[in-house]
């Protein structure tokens, strides 16, 4: 059994291009990982065996996530779920967030991230400035998809076109109001796009980090510095990177407090 698992892991690490169906073309999703995921579901009654399958699936999903150009929200969702079921909570949160970076409007990814976050054991928060629990995804880009913007753009453009055309031809009374509504619609679409891009840029400028182990948030970049907050940051906690120095990362927690944690306890979202 262990030999079989070893083979599976080696195959997973090598990537599955051409390994499952022999085709040289890039598949749209990692079939090997999918098949391991299904095996994990079959073994669900025995957590040890099941976790092994999900671990292999997670490795293959990760491998493919790095190399596939053609990603999808479904791919991201399965990757994050596989990590969660394999017991890799921080990796699961990172996978959800990486999926949401590409597909921030996807409701299933948002719900999955919320569920995964509930598994993180946050300490009791007494001071709002040291609040660790992350905010749920509530930005505009989490609510408006490019598909929505495209449809809104179509409707606004149609109204603007008809309004202008009738204004300059038949001079109908309703033409000018319709054109104005269309114009405002176009402005709204442009504004929404700008805001979504702004939010995405902010995310890129200060990448998110996920802690893979409990870590004390210190006031300086060394173990001799005192802790910034009493309780350590729990495994799976999410922070934002501010800077790096000497093997330490300066981070900011959700409440705004800043501190330092060792580099080797963080996973970078989107790396």
């Amino acid at each position, binding site marked *: 059994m262990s030999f079989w698992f070893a083979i599976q892991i080696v195959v997973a690490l090598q990537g599955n291009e051409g390994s499952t169906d022999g085709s040289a073309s890039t598949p*749209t*999703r990692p079939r090997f990982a*999918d098949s391991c*995921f*299904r095996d*994990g*579901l079959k073994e*669900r*009654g*025995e*957590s*040890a065996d*099941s*976790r092994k399958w999900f671990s292999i699936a997670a490795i293959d999903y990760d491998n493919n996530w790095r190399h596939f150009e*053609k990603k*999808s929200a*479904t791919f991201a*969702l*399965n990757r994050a*779920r596989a990590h*969660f*079921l394999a017991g890799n909570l921080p990796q699961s949160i990172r996978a959800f967030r990486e999926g949401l970076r590409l*597909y921030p409007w996807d409701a*299933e990814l948002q*719900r*999955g991230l919320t*569920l995964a976050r509930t598994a993180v054991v946050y300490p009791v928060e007494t001071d709002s400035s040291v609040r660790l629990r992350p905010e749920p995804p509530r930005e505009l880009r989490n609510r408006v*998809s*490019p*598909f929505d*913007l*495209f449809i809104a*753009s*179509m409707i*606004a*453009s*149609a109204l*603007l*076109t008809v309004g*202008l*055309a009738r204004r*300059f*031809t*038949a*001079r109908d009374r309703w033409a000018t109001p319709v054109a104005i509504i269309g114009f405002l619609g*176009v402005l709204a*679409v*442009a504004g929404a*796009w700008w805001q979504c891009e702004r939010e995405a840029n902010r995310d890129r400028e200060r990448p998110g980090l996920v802690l893979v182990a409990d870590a004390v948030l210190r006031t300086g970049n060394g173990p001799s510095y005192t802790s910034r907050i009493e309780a350590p940051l729990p495994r799976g906690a999410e922070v934002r990177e501010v800077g790096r120095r000497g093997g330490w990362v300066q981070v900011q927690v959700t409440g705004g407090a800043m501190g330092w944690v060792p580099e080797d306890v963080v996973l970078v979202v989107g790396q």
Partner: protein
Amino acid sequence: MSGTGSLLAIGLLLAVVQDRPTVESLPVIDRQRENFYHALAAGPKGVEATWLVTPTTVPIDGELSLTLIVANAANPKELVKPPLDKFEAFTALFQVFLDADAPPETDAHEVRFRYRLRPRSLDVTSIPSLKYLYYRMEGGMFYTTYARSVEIKVAPPVAKATPVAAVVPLEGPEEFFQLAEDGALLSPPTFLTIAFPILTVPIVVVVWIGLWHRLFPNAVRLAKLRRNRAARRALDRLNGARSMNDPIAITAHVLREYLTSRFALPSSAQTPNEIASGIEDSGVRTSSFDFFRACDAARFSTERDTGLSLVVRAEGLIAEWEGAAA
């Protein structure tokens, strides 16, 4: 009488006790003799020593219970437990543990000494014999007896059942136990895709206007007329008259108002003749007389006309007069 009897009995008992042999009566050097465990024999029977082994087959990692039974000793309370854990014959083959023994009765027929032995290897095949010396009071000599060797069998270790971990189902949010399947793989629209409909607005508007001019020339002319305030107002009201109850009266009224404001028709002109002459005085050739006659005919005729044709005709007249005015 009874008091005398009791004293006699006690005296006899003391005599018996005093007659019981004791190892204390032996010289010290005899008491320290090797393999002598203070057993004394009195009477015809000699002391006997035997092994009792339970069980006779023991796994290599198990223990067996060994009991030395010493029978016929005259001084059971004085017997000393042979220290098997000091005898190389035993320690080479076994780990020896001395168990506690119950103290024997004064007149016990036999005394039992208990041990636990753990074999050191699979090669152990027997419990060694034990040389046991005892002293016979009558002859004043030492005798030797043996606890005879007992065959045993040491078995390989019993394979322990591997502890089986309790089967625990994998826990997690229920929806995580689903492999999400791809729906339609649509790439999200890019900025250019979203901007495309907006960018095409000017082009579509220009094309629309061009086609409209080509396809509806009369409408173009009418649209130009709307630039004049009086004409635009009249045309709007004519357009509304289509859905009124009495479109003919409204049409005639609208047209009269238009002529008043556009061509200074006297407000006193009410009949078709007065209107026609008023218009002609302003130098405009019109066919207004026929139109107002038609209006009157339609209004007062028994056959009800919807009047929509007159509305269209009024629009045409306005277009005609505006052309003349231009």
